């Protein structure tokens, strides 16, 4: 595994942990399913619009990037893998 792939795997893992925390806070009465790299985030209702901005704030601070308005499109928020792809792209661009 290359250094870039290792970094991407860490990004996915940290995002999955963040999303699991969000899911548990949304419904303390139920045991939420584990978030996998391919779990649907938007279609499932797991991440609503406030959740999008919660995750964006997390990404900004955790990965040292700035998610621009233009990146707030459904394709970037569908899964953990999609989010990680956006993060890695922003890191490469140095934003």
């Amino acid at each position, binding site marked *: 595994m290359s250094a870039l792939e290792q970094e991407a795997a860490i990004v996915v893992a940290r995002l999955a942990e963040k999303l699991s*925390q969000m*899911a548990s*806070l*949304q*419904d303390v*009465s*139920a045991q*939420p*399913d584990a978030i996998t790299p391919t*779990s*649907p985030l938007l*279609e*499932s*209702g*797991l991440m*609503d*619009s*406030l959740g*999008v*901005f*919660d995750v*964006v*704030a*997390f990404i*900004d*601070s955790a990965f040292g990037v700035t998610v621009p*308005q233009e990146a*707030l499109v*459904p394709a970037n928020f569908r899964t953990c893998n999609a989010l990680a792809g956006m993060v890695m792209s922003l890191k490469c661009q140095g934003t």
Partner: protein
Amino acid sequence: MPSRQVSARMTVTRLSIASAPTPAGLCAVWSVSVCPLNEMQATALLTAAEHVQAAKFRSARDRARFVTTRGATRMIVATHLGVRAADVAFSHNRYGALGVAWPRAPVQISVAHSGALGLIAIADGRRIGVDVELIRGNLPSRQIASRWFHPFEQDRLSRYPPSQYDAYFLRHWVAKEAYTKGLGLGLHKRLSEFAVDVPPSSPARVVCDEAGGADAWELHLFDAAPGYIGAVAHESAQPATGERGMSRAASKGRR
């Protein structure tokens, strides 16, 4: 709070919002609790395509939320239009907002859910948007507000003590969400393009919008259920007369 039974066992509750009946027709918000009984009744109201969509949810909780809210929405629209639930068809606009495709009628709807609560807003001949949030902590409220909110809202929020900040952030959030959903744009509307004012003791309002038309909207905040804050934005029955009540601070704060 008045409650109305709309099917054999499924119960939805019409919420009291500060919107007087107008000649323009109905403008109402209903709530539905996401519980096993309501989910069971709502399941019978789904179309074949919606059953397929529901089956895609991995989480039972998320599936229950979709099924219950969609079933309640179909029941409320059918009751309002005087048709069978099975005759109601929904569509989505290009931004994902739900609408009534059939029967053809000038009825507008908006749906929101959070936690174990769903809200359904319905209006005759006017655009309407609704949002609800489970009141919770651990949100990066200051980070979100400072980066994405209008300066007018940032100024308002800065006046609240730290212990009240998150609560007032959520008031702003649901109000902004309801407005963007009413416009039919959702997240495609830049949050810093417009400002809402949600004071604790006077009516909420859309203060300004770079795209114009803020004065054509009414905004109401309400307790959707214990532990939930809700907001509905709908076009006013009165014709707009210009950007009303925009404060100097809001004007200066545009960016």
